Structure formats: structure tokens, C-alpha cells
């Protein structure tokens, strides 16, 4: 039987006087390794609290401004806010854009309703960072174009650290569509911070310009080589909606060259785990058999996502310092 009161006390004791260093979370670059560890510690307690209704954010509003469709991230933030006692409202849709209202004006309108946190998803790289200057609310980037998706990286980091203890000296192999992946954008930054060795396996057409130099990763065209002795296999789907199909010959050939099969999985370390940011495309980026095996952490990631988002909503909404902002 879970002792809610005890866990809440533990939560507050674990936080102590810790304050997250930023008012908005738009990039993993804003956090240090120490911040990540604090976030993980708190998230573990939130995870134990499961769906318990708490009053940590009672009386606060959280706006979910998603300008792109989403299943897991949107519902994850929605539930996270509600479990913390906040009033969560879907505060964004594509209608404002269709009516010709600028996103910068939309954010000011949302701001006037005084939310503590606004969670933004957009097809535009950089938009959360840009609009964050125009609202007193804390902005959380829930995915901006092909740039970053920091809460995804944090939930992935938590999943890996819980599994491996530390990521120092561990090998994480990321396979798939790097060029269009905001998940990669945040994950590679986080893994570098946590000391992991990052390998990337992708065809040249699905890499970014200067991937190696920019992020200090090892790039492999050959997925088997990249998987050898890996501790984590992290697969990314082909982002057809962002034009990736123009970067490969056929899905058939891509899948043959880069899909994770049982044989390929066997090349990794004995206790290696499989992760996927979702949505999974069975038998394209990962063989259907592997999705449900014990080494798969795909659903743990989702569970950790809820805990990570609760942590960040709480830390940002209760930061002990007023955020400065301007009007357009």
C-alpha cells in the first residue's frame, strides 16, 4: 500500500531548496548534469505516486498549446498537470493561425489568462524560445520542428539511468531518421551531458550537416557495426510527414538496411535494452517481435514521461523568482 503522505514528504525533502535554473525549458542546453539528476530523483517519486491526485499546483493554470497533432505527449502533459491539481486547458489549435493571427499574438492572449506554464508544440524550430520572451508563464517546449523535444530526452535519460546506473562509459546507439528528429536533437545533448558514448546509425541522406562535429558523436552507415556492444538501442521512425521519404530509396530497402531485427539486436550487449520514442512503425524501424520482449522499454518510457512532466511542471510553476517578459 502506497503511503501518499510519506511520499509527499519525501518529495519535498528531496527537492529541498532546489530551483531549476531556467524559467522556460526550451532546450536541454539550459540544464546541467546536476539539474538532470535532481529532475530524475523527483520523477522517481512522482512515478511511485502513480495517478494520485495531489494539490501541488492547486489554483494554477497550465495551457497546452499544441499546434501539431500528438497522442502521447499531449495526453502526458494533460494528465501530469491534472494529477498535480492544476487546471489544464487546451490553449492552442491551428484555428488562430488560419485566421491569420500571429503565434506571437496568440501567446500574449494566452498570457492574459495568467497560466503558470504554457506547453508548446509547433512545426517551427525555435518558436517556443522566441515566444517565451512575451509571456510571464514558463514555456515548455514539447517539440519544435526538427530542433528539440527536451521532456522526451529527460524521460529517456531517466529510463536509461534506471537501467544502467550511470551512463558514463555506456554506449547508446541511435538508429534512424536523425535529420528530421527533434527527439535526437534533445537526446544527443542530454547523453553528452550524462557522459554516454553516442553512436548514430543512418544513411547519409538522413543525417544532419556536420552531425559528428556538432554533437561529438560517431556516425555509422552500417547498423551492425553501430550495434556491436551497445548498451542501449534507440530507434527513431522515418518522419514521412517531414519529407523523409524523399531521402530514401524505398521503405523496403530502408527497413532491410536499418530496421532492428532480432539478429541485429543480438549484436548488442547481453543486457542491452531497446527504446523507441514512438510512434513505432512495426516492421519498418523495429521488428514486431521485439516491441514486447522483456528488453523493450518502450512502455516504460511512456510511464516515465508522465513522471518527468509532473516534475517539470512543478519545478517551473513554483520557481521562487518572477520571470521577466516584454510585450510586443
Amino acid at each position, binding site marked *: 500500500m502506497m503511503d501518499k503522505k510519506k511520499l509527499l514528504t519525501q518529495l519535498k525533502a528531496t527537492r529541498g531548496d532546489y530551483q531549476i535554473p531556467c524559467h522556460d525549458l526550451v532546450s536541454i542546453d539550459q540544464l546541467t548534469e546536476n539539474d538532470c539528476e535532481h529532475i530524475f530523483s523527483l520523477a522517481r517519486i512522482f512515478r511511485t505516486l502513480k495517478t494520485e491526485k495531489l494539490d501541488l499546483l492547486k489554483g494554477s493554470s497550465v495551457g497546452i498549446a499544441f499546434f501539431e497533432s500528438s497522442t502521447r505527449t499531449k495526453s502526458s502533459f494533460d494528465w501530469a498537470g491534472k494529477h498535480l491539481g492544476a487546471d489544464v486547458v487546451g490553449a492552442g489549435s491551428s484555428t488562430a493561425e488560419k485566421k491569420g493571427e*500571429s*503565434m506571437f499574438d496568440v501567446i500574449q492572449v494566452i498570457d492574459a489568462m495568467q497560466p503558470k506554464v504554457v506547453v508548446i508544440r509547433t512545426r*517551427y*524550430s525555435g518558436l517556443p*524560445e522566441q515566444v517565451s520572451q512575451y509571456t510571464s508563464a514558463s514555456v515548455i517546449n514539447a517539440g*519544435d520542428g526538427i530542433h528539440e523535444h527536451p521532456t522526451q530526452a529527460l524521460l529517456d535519460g531517466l529510463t536509461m539511468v534506471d537501467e544502467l546506473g550511470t551512463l558514463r562509459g555506456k554506449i547508446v546507439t541511435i538508429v534512424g531518421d536523425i535529420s528530421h528528429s527533434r527527439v535526437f536533437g534533445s537526446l544527443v545533448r542530454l547523453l553528452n551531458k550524462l557522459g554516454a558514448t553516442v553512436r548514430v546509425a543512418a544513411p547519409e541522406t538522413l543525417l544532419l*550537416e556536420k*552531425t559528428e562535429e556538432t554533437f561529438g558523436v560517431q556516425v555509422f552507415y552500417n547498423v551492425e557495426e553501430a550495434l556491436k556492444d551497445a548498451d542501449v538501442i534507440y530507434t527513431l521512425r522515418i518522419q514521412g510527414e517531414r519529407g523523409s521519404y524523399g531521402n530514401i530509396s524505398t521503405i523496403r530497402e530502408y527497413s532491410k538496411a536499418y530496421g532492428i531485427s532480432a539478429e541485429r539486436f543480438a549484436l548488442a550487449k547481453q543486457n542491452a535494452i531497446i527504446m523507441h520514442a514512438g510512434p513505432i512503425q512495426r516492421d519498418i524501424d523495429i521488428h514486431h517481435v521485439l516491441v514486447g520482449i522483456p528488453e523493450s522499454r518502450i512502455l516504460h518510457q511512456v510511464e516515465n514521461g508522465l513522471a518527468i512532466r509532473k516534475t517539470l511542471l512543478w519545478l517551473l510553476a513554483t520557481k521562487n523568482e518572477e520571470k521577466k517578459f516584454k510585450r*510586443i
Partner: protein
Amino acid sequence: MTSILIQNGRLIDPKNGIDEITDILIEQKKVKAIGKNLKKADAAIDATGKIICPGLVDLQVHLREPGREDRETIETGLKAALAGGITSVVSMPNLNPVADNQTVIEFQLRKGELLQLANIFPAGATTVGQKGKYLSEMRELKLAGAVAVTDDGVDIQNAGVLEKAMEWAKTFNLPVFSHCEEVSLHNGEGLMHEGQWSTRLGLPGVSAQVEDYGVFRSILLAEKTGVQFHALHCSTKKGLEIIAQAKQGNSKITCETCPQYFALTDEICKNYNTDAKMYPPIRSIEHQQAVIKRLKDGTIDCISTDHAPHIPPDKCKPFAEAAHGSVGLETSLALGITHLVEPNHLTFSQLIEKMSTNPAKVIHIDRGHLSLGATADITIFDPKEEWIVDPKQFQSKGRNCVFKGMKLTGKVTHVFVAGVQKV
């Protein structure tokens, strides 16, 4: 008619090889005399410690009128030019309507005449509506007063049309200015220079090859057709190498760059700074160094501004949607001094040559020099005065300035157009 004697300044006139402390007398709109102990004039200006040079000539200015008078008008644009020491501007044709026939050219010239500010020299469009399909009526453009044809910020993608356009322009003795670009290489989606910063920011890149390829195509066809060809806003290492080679023994090929390409690198885009969104994009240090090298070795003949005023909502947008360009008329001279003369890349004389003498030659106007009897378009500046760029102080309507907040050296103090003091 009044006469003015400008005394004790350092007079630099690259065309006549003058760089000395002397006096200059303006009378009847013309340069009357240069030397010491000149006769008394109606008015005198003490230019001690200052540099006197032929008025600057800018080959690439977006005046926005007709069409987008909320961004800039001919009046505000020409006032901005004067504030920057620029006495002649080439007006680019991406107006609404596009300057692809004589009406817009005549309108702009008439406005310029009425305003009596800086001189305006309109450029016409190379193709109808800048669409790259059908040739514009270049004979009529020329007769109306156009000094060049250009499709401005869009390059003609069909090489066959480009070749015919060059031949047609040659027939009517008009130079072709080209923004060199192979659009298919970035699918029209690139937002900034392709490199480490674009990767970090998650913004689709425009590779240097996009420009190199466009330069190569244009040069091949310019060589074949023998047209007078001028490459606009050059920003890449290889593109400039191609131009350097083509210029050997071919005086009909010229090129320019803009201050943003020698003063800045792509890091300026960080934090999604939309004022730094530019076309071509501000490039990496490797290309910036190459631009400086080509300014030094003479491959780059001219420095223009690509002055591109916008209203704040044009820039207060996601980086992908924000307008391209920065205002530049009021900062170009100081940027040249700060980033080229002070680090000893160019002498003052070389800078003035690239900002006045050479651009005047490209469009065949009798400006850019202070020969006796020349029209007295004269700029005087203090080469040592330091100032901080504050777009709120600009004459231009545009506040979108990528150089905002930067400390620059060199301030314009007096400007004369045809012997009349404007600043």
C-alpha cells in the same frame, strides 16, 4: 549660385589617385578646384581630421515604393542613404508592381526628381514579374532610364531563359545583375547557412553550393554571351573563386558583397534572431574569411548594402516565416571602416573605390570621382568617431537591423548632392 570651400580635410579620390590633405571648392554644382590657397567661397566648411570622398554609390537598395510604402518610401529610403553618405542608389525591381516595364522606372525617377535627395538609378526586372519565364521589354526599360536588369532576389532557374535574357540585355546594352542560386539544392526550404549552427538550431540549411552552382551557371553563360554581368551579394568561398578566375581578362564581369558577409558569421542566428535572416544567408567563418580575402585581392569590386526594410511584424515571426534582409544604408560605411580598414584589410582609398568609384563604373554613371568639372556629389566623414547602432535613430522606416547594438567607427558628417548640402 553659392560656392562652398571645404578645407583641411583628407581628400580621397581613388579614380584620380588622390589621397592628401587639401581643400576642395564646389561651385555651380560642380567640383571647381582642388588644392591649397583656393579663392574665397560663399561658405566654408572645416574638415580637419575628416575624410572627403566622392559620394557613395550603392548598387542594391530595396526602396519598397511602389507597393510597400509601410516598409519604406522612396523619400525615407533616400534620406537613409544620405545619412549613410550614399548619394546614388540603384533601386531594385522587386516592387509591386514589379519594375518589369517602363512605368515603374518613370515613376521612381519622377519621384526622385521631385524629392531632390540622393540620386535614384532604377534597375528593371530581367523577366516579366521576376518569374524567370518571359523576357522583359529591356529596350523600353533602358529608354525609360533603367541602368541594369536583374530579377533581384530570385535567380532565373531555367538556364535557357537565362542565356536568352543575357543576349537580349547585351543587345540593348544593359548590364545583368544576378542573385546566384540553384533553388533545387535546398528545395526552396533553406533558412540559414548550412553548417554547425543550422544543425544546432534545427533550421534547414542553404549550402554554399546553392550559390556556387548559381555563380558557375551565370558565369558560363555570361562568358558565352559576352553580356556585362554583375554578381550580387557574393558570400561563398568557391563562388568567389569561380568569379576570380572568370575575371581574368574579362572586364565585363564584376561582383559585389555586402557588409553582413564580411562583418558577421552564422552564429548571429542563434536564439532565432530573425534580424539575421538574410538571403543569401550569413555564412560560416570560412566563407567570411574568403570574402575578406577577395575584397583584398580585388576580385570583389563593390560593396553594396542589399538594404531591405521591413515592418516589425515581418520579423516577429517563427524563423521559417520571417522576412529576409536587414536595413543597411546607414551603417555600411562604418562597417567597412570598422571591419575592413581598421584591421588593415583595406585602405580608406580601397574602401571608397569599392563603395563609390567601382559601383559607378558598373552602371556607367558619371559619378564616383572628384575630377575637375565632375558633379559635386561629396561625402565627408569622421573616420574616428565611434557610435552604437540604434535603429530607432534611423531615417529609414526599417528597424530590422542585424547590426543593432554594435559599436562602429566612422560617422558621416556632411553630404552634398550636385553641390547642395543635404546632411
